[in-house]
């Protein structure tokens, strides 16, 4: 005990655990990133000369517009739902998260299926009204089309995190502003936006990372971005080195954005001062205003969920006889199992790191919180190969152990679910972390400091004081990770054990053969399970203490 006391203040269990997790996350990435320091290849010159400018252009346009649009839609919806009452608001509260349940690449195929020449809309126009349209107006496979898909299916990140934040913490500031005579616009732009900045940034950085990572949508739409180029360089040209350089360029962009934002935010921190956190009181909208609010929510909900969902159901009715089989029950079991275990580990790790990072404003603490994002910013396939490398090393090291327990030396870990779940953790830690970090941001440090001054240790403070306060944030972190894993594709595809299928690999199996109609059943089940998850956690959040 005495020895423990002598250690510097920051050397405690939280520190050790955090560093341990950070190393776990770094390991697979480092095994790949080491390639960065090798000699430039002739391929890299080729890339610089011919495709890099195009990649930069396309990627920046997509990021910029998706970023702006998701912020606008996400925060405006969060504000509407938190501050006003209008028809069906209780439904929209969680319904507006539902687009997150649809994997963007499925959405891309589905929207093309609705809009193209053989699609529902054009077919009706042509066959019923004898009206043939200009294909250009119905072409979604364009740069703006990709931005549309990303915006409409990823804005819930911003919406969700911002809304949780507004509901729990903003009441005193906003009500004061209202009392002082601020109108709706002043309140929104001068109070809501600034105070929820960290929540918005948390949400939008998830959106952007997801976009940078996406391979399915941009490949299908024929748009060259960093992720398509990384694949082409690595697999097509067989040049891992140049692919890593591309990855590194991408990561450089990501980190620059995050750092610039952090600098701009500088020291502005909003800490809760009142002991009582009250929900924001809502204003009843009247007359035309309520219908505008209602229509706005309906349009977004329709585009992001209802329309593609109905199309998928229509396709399912066409094809289910051919593809339904008892094995679908196993698929559901597998999907839910990996998603649940993965998310559980993710939130545990995220809480540990987030708590460590806010306790210590040291360099290590700050860095470790940024490192969580590493796995989320690199394309899935790159991480996958890093993970395989690490696991095979571990298995080789463990050959002796395997023998001593009477097993044949084999790739035990790397052919088990252990590898897949670890990969999920590396990949989606950022998702859980961002939610939980903004939860901590939201409660500030007043309570924690009080508790520490009154003599409680960090761990005890966490259990008695912090945990009850951030329970909501932990749940939303869990929910987001759960849905992410449920619809995750590249890692699941390559890292799964033999004979292990999930709903998303099943959907991909058909989609990759250009049989989107046949992919509908598995997609619908993914959507329904995610939908149930969204609903349950919404209920828990709603009834929880604020």
């Amino acid at each position: 005990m005495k020895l423990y006391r002598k250690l510097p203040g920051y050397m405690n269990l939280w520190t050790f655990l955090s560093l341990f997790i950070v190393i776990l996350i770094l390991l697979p990435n480092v095994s790949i990133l080491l390639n960065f320091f090798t000699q430039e290849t002739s391929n890299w010159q080729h890339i610089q000369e011919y495709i890099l400018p195009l990649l930069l252009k396309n990627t920046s346009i997509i990021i910029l517009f998706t970023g702006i649009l998701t912020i606008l839609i996400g925060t405006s919806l969060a504000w509407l739902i938190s501050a006003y009452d209008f028809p069906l608001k209780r439904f929209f509260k969680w319904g507006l998260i539902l687009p997150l349940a649809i994997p963007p690449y499925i959405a891309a195929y589905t929207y093309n299926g609705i809009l193209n020449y053989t699609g529902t809309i054009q077919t009706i126009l042509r066959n019923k009204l004898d009206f043939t349209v200009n294909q250009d107006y119905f072409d979604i496979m364009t740069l703006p089309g990709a931005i549309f898909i990303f915006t409409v299916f990823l804005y819930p990140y911003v919406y969700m995190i911002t809304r949780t934040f507004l509901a729990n913490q903003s009441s005193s500031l906003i009500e004061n502003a209202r009392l002082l005579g601020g109108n709706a616009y002043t309140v929104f732009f001068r109070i809501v936006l600034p105070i929820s900045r960290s929540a918005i940034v948390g949400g939008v950085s998830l959106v952007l990372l997801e976009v940078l990572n996406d391979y399915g949508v941009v490949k299908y739409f024929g748009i060259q971005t960093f992720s398509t180029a990384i694949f082409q360089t690595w697999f097509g040209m067989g040049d891992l080195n140049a692919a890593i350089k591309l990855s590194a360029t991408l990561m450089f962009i990501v980190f620059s954005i995050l750092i610039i934002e952090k600098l701009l935010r500088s020291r502005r921190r909003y800490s809760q001062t009142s002991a009582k956190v009250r929900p924001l009181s809502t204003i009843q909208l009247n007359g035309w205003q309520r219908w505008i609010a209602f229509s706005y929510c309906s349009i977004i909900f329709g585009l992001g969920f209802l329309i593609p969902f109905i199309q998928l159901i229509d396709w399912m009715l066409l094809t289910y006889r051919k593809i339904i089989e008892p094995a679908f029950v196993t698929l559901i079991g597998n999907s839910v199992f990996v998603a649940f275990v993965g998310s559980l580990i993710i939130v545990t790790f995220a809480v540990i790191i987030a708590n460590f990072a806010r306790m210590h404003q040291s360099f290590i603490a700050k860095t470790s919180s940024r490192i969580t994002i590493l796995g989320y910013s690199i394309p899935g396939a790159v991480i996958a190969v890093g993970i395989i490398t690490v696991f095979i090393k571990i298995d080789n090291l463990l050959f002796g152990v395997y023998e001593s327990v009477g097993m044949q030396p084999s790739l035990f870990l790397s052919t088990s679910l252990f590898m897949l779940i670890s990969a999920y953790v590396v990949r989606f830690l950022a998702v859980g972390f961002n939610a939980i970090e903004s939860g901590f941001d939201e409660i500030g440090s007043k309570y924690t400091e009080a508790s520490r001054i009154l003599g409680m240790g960090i761990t005890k403070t966490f259990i008695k004081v912090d945990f009850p306060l951030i329970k909501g944030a932990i749940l939303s972190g869990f929910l987001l990770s759960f849905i992410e894993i449920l619809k995750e594709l590249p890692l699941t595809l390559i890292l799964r054990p033999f004979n292990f299928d999930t709903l998303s690999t099943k959907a991909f199996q058909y989609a990759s053969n250009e049989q989107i109609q046949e992919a509908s059943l598995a997609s619908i089940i993914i959507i329904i399970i995610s939908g149930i998850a969204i609903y349950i956690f919404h209920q828990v959040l709603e009834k929880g203490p604020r």
Partner: protein
Amino acid sequence: MNNRFFIISIIALLSILSLAACGNTSEDGDTSEESNGAKGEINLYTGRHYETDQELYDQFTEETGIQVNVIKGKDDELIARLDREGKASEADLFITADAGRLHIAKEKGLLQEVKSDTVNKNIPDKYRDEENNWIGLTKRARIITYHKDRVNPEDIQTYQDLTSDTFQDKVLIRSSSNIYNQSLLASLIAIDGEEGATKWASGIVDNMARDPKGGDRDQAIGVAAGEGDVAVMNTYYLGKMLNSEEEEQVKAAEQLGIIFPNQETTGTHVNISGIGLTASSKNKENAIKFIEFLTTKSAQEQFAKANYEYPANPDVEPTELLKSWGEFKEQELNLTELGENNDTAIKIMNKVGWK
């Protein structure tokens, strides 16, 4: 509230445990057979995702008692996984839908020779690797479709015709990230040399009706919709469209004619789906049995029937639909050249601005 939260957590945990229990039993079942090999098992990595392939595997298990364990993935990533796993890999077999990729796997030393008279008898030399490192199972031709009303088939007899002035802004083709296009260009590099291939690719880019996008089916639909007049696609996609559940897809496909390009000259580009025996295979005997099984007449018939591909075994007839399109002359080309030229093909595409 606290109670409710905990009850939910407990229910959730219980459901995990029960699922885990189910999951474990099935996994144990798989691994226990590994050690003795009385009946045995084989482990397969495959880049083909057709439901009907699974039916063939099941049939094999039924006939021989040998269990087939499968990981389905994307071809390139499976190669990367094999590569990383090295000698320790559990995989015995690797199936992919592109000869170029099989060649890449071979070059990386991931495959080994298949010694089997049955296989050599069933599959002609030209669909096998020179050292029998991989064996072709099915063929697909990359053909040109045209709109029956708007195009005179006389004008479009070769891949080179696609670059003629007649089809200015009329050509629909997928993006350069698509392996089928990479292999097509790789074959042209082998036949016409790098310069000729570059000229061709650049002519294609000039004649493109729109930026490349979508899959093969989307190109065909584009022709039906009037966005372009001619499109490049694999045969089986047209087969699938003609047999689609969706009436409109069938209607679109019916407007299209089909050309096997370069019949008078160098022949139509053909690619294969093939299988390789991994260098690390630990169940070699069973794995070869499996390859032999896939080349048999009955398996080949099923392969071909299900996915509108051409069987690699010449004794097996293609389906009626394919027969109705007639026989055709294939490129005289060793398929390994597709793999050798893949890198160059991608660079040419980047240079000429093929998106």
